[in-house]
């Protein structure tokens, strides 16, 4: 059998997972809370980038408006909490994900009528509409002043989520869950079909696939997880502004996916880490952090167009036989 993992392989994967869990669980106990904060943000952006990559990496659809869903999730929670006085976290997140899904339903329906460059432009335009709404509708969204006063959820546990490290663990749960679900989807018949569509859509139609439906469902899945990232971020910040659904945020997630690697499932996670560290850590030393990000992007495009993780995977394949 070719597809069943051998026992040794299973043990190796098991070891990876254990080491990963240990790092993610234990290390935050020993580092300054400023770095825990950044780490938590990286996890949020990793969810965001993974959701984006379902479109970009798996289906071959480049969306320049993925921030729309980040903003939709974030603003829904912000409005429910600040304007609606709702303090039930589960209800808030449920409504926020529902709104993200509905927005994906509408945006996907419109955007997927086009392909190629038109798809890119229309996703950008739709997200910009949302951004303009957040920017101009001051009475509701506070415009560019944003909406402050979003408290972290309180489950009545002894560990307050106002504590950075505790909130980090809270995010970690959602990260692991998202990772698991999206990974399962990527390996499923549905996920394999997306790859086929990316590679040769007319051929998939001729094989009997209703490719539009696959792309549409994928778009909605990406919207929901993009919304989830927005929800987690807004609780983290306690504040929302139109930046959430800005072009900058959309561009950032594209960079994350490209730098990490779009063809490897874990690529966008590393990409999120690299980009966010440059944006938050390097930017505190120099205002030229975007220059560094730009140079990195150029280097990646020129020398490792498959992204960092893609490049490493290729190296491993090339030298794997030496290591045995």
């Amino acid at each position: 059998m070719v597809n069943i993992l051998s026992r040794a392989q299973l043990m190796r994967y098991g070891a990876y997972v254990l080491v990963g869990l240990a790092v993610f669980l234990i290390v935050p106990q020993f580092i300054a809370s400023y770095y825990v904060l950044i780490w938590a943000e990286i996890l949020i952006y990793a969810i965001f980038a993974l959701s984006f990559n379902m479109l970009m990496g798996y289906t071959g659809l480049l969306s320049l408006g993925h921030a729309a869903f980040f903003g939709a999730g974030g603003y829904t929670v912000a409005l429910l909490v600040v304007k609606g006085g709702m303090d039930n976290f589960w209800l808030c997140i449920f409504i926020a994900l529902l709104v993200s899904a509905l927005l994906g339903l509408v945006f996907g329906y419109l955007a997927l009528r086009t392909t190629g460059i038109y798809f890119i432009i229309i996703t950008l335009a739709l997200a910009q509409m949302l951004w303009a709404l957040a920017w101009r509708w001051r009475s509701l969204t506070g415009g560019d002043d944003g909406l402050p006063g979003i408290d972290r959820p309180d489950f009545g546990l002894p560990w307050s989520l106002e504590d950075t490290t505790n909130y980090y663990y809270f995010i970690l749960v959602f990260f692991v869950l998202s990772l698991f679900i999206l990974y399962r989807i990527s390996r499923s018949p549905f996920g394999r079909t997306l790859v086929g569509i990316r590679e040769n859509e007319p051929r998939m139609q001729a094989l009997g696939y209703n490719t539009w439906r696959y792309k549409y469902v994928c778009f909605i899945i990406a919207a929901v997880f993009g919304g989830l990232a927005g929800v987690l971020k807004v609780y983290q910040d306690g504040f929302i502004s139109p930046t959430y659904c800005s072009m900058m945020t959309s561009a950032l997630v594209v960079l994350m996916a490209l730098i990490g690697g779009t063809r490897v499932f874990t690529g966008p996670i590393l990409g999120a880490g690299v980009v966010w560290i440059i944006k938050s850590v390097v930017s505190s030393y120099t205002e030229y952090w975007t220059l560094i990000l730009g140079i990195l992007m150029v280097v990646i495009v020129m020398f490792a167009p498959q992204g960092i993780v893609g490049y490493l995977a290729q190296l491993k394949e090339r030298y794997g036989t030496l290591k045995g």
Partner: protein
Amino acid sequence: MELLKAEGVSKNFDSLYAVQNVSLSVSGGERRAIIGPNGAGKTTLFNLLAGELEPCSGRIYLFGQDVTTTPVHQRVHLGLARTFQIMNLIPNLSVLDNVKLAIQAIKPFRFGMFRSQNAYTSLLDEAQSLLDRWGLWGKRQDLMQELSYGQQRRVELIMALASKPKILLLDEPTSGLSEAAAASFLDMIRELGRDITVVIVEHDMDVVFDLADYITVLHHGEVIAEGTGREIKDNHMVKEIYLGEES
């Protein structure tokens, strides 16, 4: 019984009539060839039958059902499969992945999201029996693009057969193949059971004479002759088109 029927089908691109008022009917188990010189409208007719194009007028029936406006992917589920004139596969995936995708296309679990594709062992079993039957199981791990042209053609046919079609449409299957590869491909077609009806579009007349029961000849988008191989060979209009233009 008529499995596939076209009734007065026309297709024009702007002012150019590619296919004009074509009627034909193919019955179960038949081996039908559609031939004609370059530019006769063969590929257009083929794409109309497969559903890639929609006719400007006329109707197309599949198993007695009007499919004139039915999209390609739905026709596959009705029992129609096709191959392409220009190799049309998924070059960056392995042979096995290509075939698995082809089999999966008509399975109820094709929208399945939570179990790994590998967990559907029936997929692997079916892929193995198909690839085994045509001697390509040993190549399953190779990327599609690493295969020879002749092998790719064979995989393409396997992928068309994966949906268990009742009608198989072949668009110039031997074009670009060496003589030997073409011969082995045609052997594959001959081995197919009569439960599969085959419609083959060909430029090369020799290819079809020993394969087809019945031949439809297109010229300038119109049907100018129809009959058995012998009848077509003796048809003076056909002779004129194929020989006259050259002499």
